[in-house]
């Protein structure tokens, strides 16, 4: 039984790490623009499917395919901001959120036309022989996921706390108007935030595709789970969202294993609803007064 529980926890942590990465993407855009970008999941899809495309159609090496996929997904993210968010920046957040939903449907539809409806698999980065840890198993790819997630979180933290543009972005999230008054180019920061979060999304898509496979419609569910993670973490672009994602993954896995697998997805959304009702500021933040 203890082997089983360990396996549930390990499985949960590895799925949770993915939710965290996607969740951080949500949080970064939320913090700089105040909108929830529901197209975030589509960047996860773009990362995975474009890597597959460059790898198997153009026969590029894995590293080159990955770099190209990240670059192109980021370009799509920037284009997305330029074409939809910037021209409408005076619109209410509700309208912008609806626009992101529209954009996600558009991106998904175009991906379907370009790459077809089939599911595709990517090779593992390093081997597919499972490793045994105290009776539970995981794949080398899981270590890659943990490692890359940790690395990205560290880089993120450094960027937001120790670089000028990172600090400027945080300033925007606290008060856009004041940030503008002290000479921060708010528009540019918004563009940056879209670039960063689409890049993060595509990285999440690439490192998970060898495990989960990829197709034009993988973005929906992963996007929603990432959103849950960000909500649990109170939309922080730091460690709280990471913990939120890991918690979500572990609870899902334990729930599927020990209660019933029929409720696996329900667990995520019940948690989402509970958090929104009971602690809308996230699990870890103290309640704030509403900014006006």
């Amino acid at each position: 039984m203890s082997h089983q529980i360990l396996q549930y926890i390990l499985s949960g942590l590895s799925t949770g790490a993915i939710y965290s990465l996607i969740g951080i993407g949500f949080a970064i855009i939320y913090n700089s623009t105040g909108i929830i970008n529901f197209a975030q999941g589509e960047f996860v899809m773009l990362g995975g499917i474009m890597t597959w495309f460059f790898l198997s159609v153009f026969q590029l090496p894995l590293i080159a395919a990955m770099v190209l996929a990240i670059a192109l997904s980021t370009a799509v993210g920037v284009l997305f901001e330029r074409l939809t968010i910037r021209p409408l920046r005076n619109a209410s957040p509700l309208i912008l959120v609806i626009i992101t939903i529209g954009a996600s449907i558009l991106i998904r539809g175009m991906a379907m036309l370009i790459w077809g409806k089939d599911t595709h698999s990517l090779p593992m980065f390093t081997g597919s022989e499972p490793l045994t840890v105290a009776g539970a198993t995981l794949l080398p790819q899981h270590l890659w996921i943990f490692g890359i997630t940790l690395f990205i979180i560290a880089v993120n933290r450094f960027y937001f706390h120790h670089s000028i543009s990172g600090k400027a972005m945080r300033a925007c999230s606290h008060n856009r108007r004041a940030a503008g008054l002290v000479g921060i180019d708010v528009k540019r920061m918004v563009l940056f935030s879209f670039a960063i979060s689409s890049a993060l999304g595509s990285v999440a898509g690439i490192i998970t595709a060898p495990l989960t496979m990829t197709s034009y419609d993988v973005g929906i569910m992963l996007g929603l789970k990432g959103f849950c993670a960000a909500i649990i973490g109170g939309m922080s672009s730091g460690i709280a969202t990471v913990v939120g994602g890991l918690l979500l993954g572990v609870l899902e896995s334990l729930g599927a294993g020990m209660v019933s697998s029929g409720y696996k997805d329900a667990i995520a959304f019940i948690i989402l609803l509970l958090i929104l009702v009971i602690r809308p500021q996230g699990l870890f933040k103290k309640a704030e007064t509403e900014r006006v």
Partner: protein
Amino acid sequence: MGRFVMSAVAALVVVVCATAASAASTIRIGGLFAVTGPAAFLGEPERNTLEMLVKETNAKGGIHGSRIELFVYDTQGDATKAVQLATKLIKNDKVVAIIGPSTTGESLAVIPVVEREKIPLVSCAAGIKITEPVKKWVFKTPANDHVAAEKIFNYAAKLKQKNIALMTVSDSYGSSGREQLKALAAKKGISIVADEVYSPKDTDMTPQLTKIRGAKPDAIICWGTNPGPAVVTRNLKQLGIKIPLYQSHGVASKKFIELAGSAAAEGVTLPAGKLAIYDILPKNDPQAPLLREYDQAYRRNFKVEASTFGGYAYDGYRLIVEAIKKSGATPDKIRAGLENTRKMVGVSGVFTMSQTDHNGLDLSAFEMVRVSKGDWVLAR
């Protein structure tokens, strides 16, 4: 001048007569397929197949000299649209028979319409409720799920596997399979020791499989369509679980081996429709020549391999054509002809219909196959 007018009139008369004659001798057939939308993987090959076959028939001069006129509509997998379009086919286009719809939900919705209007329907959906209980005007070409389930249980019984774990997807395909498997297990004296489900978009099934390992089954049956079963196969390998794995006929294509990886898929056993494996069928199999011909014609026309789903429309069309040849081209006669189908070789199997069986397929529709070195081999 006078002669010119005369010959012009004569020509006109000829043209009018010819049109009238051809109108009198066309046979109007309708198709309802989910060409777009979530079930497009069914509807697209079905429509392609039907259009290809009709073109072929007309090129050969039609049936007893009558051209086939085809009316195909896209239901988008939506039951409401399917009902509207079925009515349109019957009232406006005046078809004598309908092939489709692609999904079980749409088929069940259309059944009352065709029963009322007395137009024969040959559904391309697998749900057992379509033809059980038997409805006078409704037929279907895909084999029932329980035929595939029975095939697996018979195979498992031969290997003395008594305790089975189920791992089914939580969509209509999986839940229908799960019901059939459980009902059949009770009849065959096999006990279901674990009954886990996963959702169609799940990316990690290790929790369910860990739980299944705890139940110590002799074999696992997974019931779903790609990519879920491929993930299950990979996760089993990852967990180092050595319990034999059966998959359903829903993944009987090379795509499954490709997605799961040939190392992880090694030894996976499943009942396959014969189209996927016609290369390795014994020489005397009655279906082999037809399957080869269909696959090659489909590749020529559409540049991809033929799928089992397209085969459902193939069989529907062939059944109707045979019925017309035998009995005549009115709805009534086609219906009677369909019911009298005897040993008609098709893509999904060999059809023998009767008053009590409007599907007409038996256990021979499937063949047990095993993955070996990245390809299928017969498992007997």
